[in-house]
């Protein structure tokens, strides 16, 4: 019997692309996606269920569909345009409900994949140049986002203790850049104005969006347990990020940069989420050898991820923002997936 996979956050970049990747895998029998909004990418055979942010109905869905794998990608890893309450609801309460459903008595679930972020390490002057998965953080926890990520991973640890038979994979992603994904950094690079803190040129690490999807697929397909850092090889100076992407650096004063930046943030000229402040001083690097040892090969380095974004931006400047090529229409999707009138080639 093939695998039955449930993906959260189908309406986000992460969930949508992951569902597309799994659709190409003949070993995956059924894909079910949860999302608060309609999916933004065309999907062949993924079933879409609209759910609220905290997945209170998840328990019923898991029982009814007998999924064996849950890929939890609906976690916020930046705090732009989101209140701390919603952030807490999505990250902590959402994960709590998801793990409760996965660990219910007599569960069909055998693997849980959770997305996390290297923000969990924080950034401080006392950091090692490269964080290993077991290295603890030095920076005090100041932001809501970091606190919620730490809480999520604590929930996952408890879950592993309570359910030792289950395969649990946690992927900590560095800053994602690429053709499609929109993050605070990529938004700034698109506007060609990159905030920095005067006198600092931190070394930062990126991961390309294709590598993100491939790594999620890799741990899901091979059922690899453990916590892994996911980031492209090497670190590069912030000033070089700006020059590769053709953006101008926008220096903020070293003392209280946030209040100086706030009028520019309100005008929408820059995005400067609170978790970026220490990063722009001290940078961050993670050791990715553990994931590579499991047989994963990166296609892009950190600099390659920035170049990939720069190429996408060049195209965008030349031809403008392309219209979304796809719009989800429930009736059409329902017709293609379930109507007896559609001739289906693949049959088991």
């Amino acid at each position: 019997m093939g695998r039955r996979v449930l993906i959260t956050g189908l309406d986000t970049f992460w969930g949508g692309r992951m569902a597309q990747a799994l659709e190409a895998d003949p070993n995956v029998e059924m894909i079910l996606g949860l999302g608060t909004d309609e999916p933004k990418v065309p999907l062949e055979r993924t079933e879409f269920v609209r759910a609220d942010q905290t997945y209170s109905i998840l328990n019923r869905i898991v029982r009814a569909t007998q999924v064996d794998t849950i890929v939890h990608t609906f976690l916020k890893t930046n705090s732009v345009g989101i209140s701390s309450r919603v952030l807490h609801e999505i990250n902590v309460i959402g994960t709590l409900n998801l793990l409760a459903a996965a660990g219910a008595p007599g569960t069909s679930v055998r693997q849980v994949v959770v997305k996390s972020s290297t923000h969990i390490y924080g950034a401080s002057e006392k950091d090692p140049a490269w964080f290993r998965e077991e290295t603890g953080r030095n920076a005090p926890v100041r932001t809501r986002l970091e606190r919620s990520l730490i809480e999520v991973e604590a929930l996952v640890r408890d879950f592993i203790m309570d359910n030792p038979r289950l395969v649990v994979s946690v992927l900590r992603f560095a800053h994602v850049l690429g053709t499609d994904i929109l993050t605070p950094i990529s938004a700034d690079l698109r506007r060609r104005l990159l905030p920095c803190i005067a006198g600092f040129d931190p070394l930062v690490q990126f991961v390309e969006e294709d590598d993100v999807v491939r790594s999620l697929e890799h741990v899901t397909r091979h059922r690899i347990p453990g916590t892994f850092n996911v980031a492209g090889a090497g670190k590069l100076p912030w000033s070089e990020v700006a020059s590769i992407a053709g953006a101008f650096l926008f220096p903020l004063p070293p003392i209280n940069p946030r209040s100086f930046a706030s009028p520019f943030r309100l005008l929408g000229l820059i995005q400067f989420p609170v978790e970026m402040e220490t990063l722009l001083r001290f940078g961050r690097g993670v050791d990715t050898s553990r994931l590579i040892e499991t047989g994963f090969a990166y296609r892009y380095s950190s600099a390659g991820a920035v170049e990939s974004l720069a190429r996408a931006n060049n195209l965008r400047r030349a031809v403008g923002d392309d219209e979304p090529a796809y719009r989800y229409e429930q009736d059409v999707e329902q017709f293609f997936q379930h109507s007896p009138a559609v001739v289906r080639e693949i049959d088991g």
Partner: protein
Amino acid sequence: MYRHWFRVEWEGLDKIPMTGGALLVSNHAGAIPSDAPAIMHGIEEELGRPVYGMADYFFRKVPVVGTLWSRAGGVAAHPDNAYRLLHDQGQLSLVFPEGTKGPSKTYADRYRLRRFGRGGFVEIAMRSGVPVIPIAVVGAEESMPILFRINGLAKALKLPYFPVTANDLAFGPLLGKVAYFPAKIKIHVLDPVTFDVDPGLERYSKSRVMDEAERIRAMLQDTLHDMLRERRSVWFG
């Protein structure tokens, strides 16, 4: 600077290996120490090998300084960083075990080595399985000698120490922070110290570590005294 201002002179440069990791250990002096760049630039110039200087992580908090330091090949002194450089990458790495106690000492205490921390550098070298190469530097003390320290101001500015140097008096408080006296710098490389222990262990006997650290400190101190005995002039060597 290196060639014409400090006219750096090396002795025993052949004791530094051309390949493989080694932990260079040196004495530290001068309000804003000139010995670190002298050693790092020197080995790079003479041997063509990069040297990674380990500095107090305090510097990373200071705008501009931290960036320049890391561009020059400086690394924050974190045990993980040292192990990675020495063991995984087989690089040369330079530490000053006196820490900030070295450069903060006043001119009256010149060439008197401070306590060698907690012997962390010996432990790292043991774990990485690399030799420790002590390096004695003479001249950096006189390039920016500290007359006295203002402790209250250091506390207010959150600095490890706030020195008032002879350079401040000679060149004024601003220029005096960057202008060195042209003292002749002599660098003497000592024989490598190897440890007869298994590399890769999590812990090493504390008494062994402290003994080795003290032995290296004594070696450096003796060499410094020898070099000072031979020195006829601060400026011409």
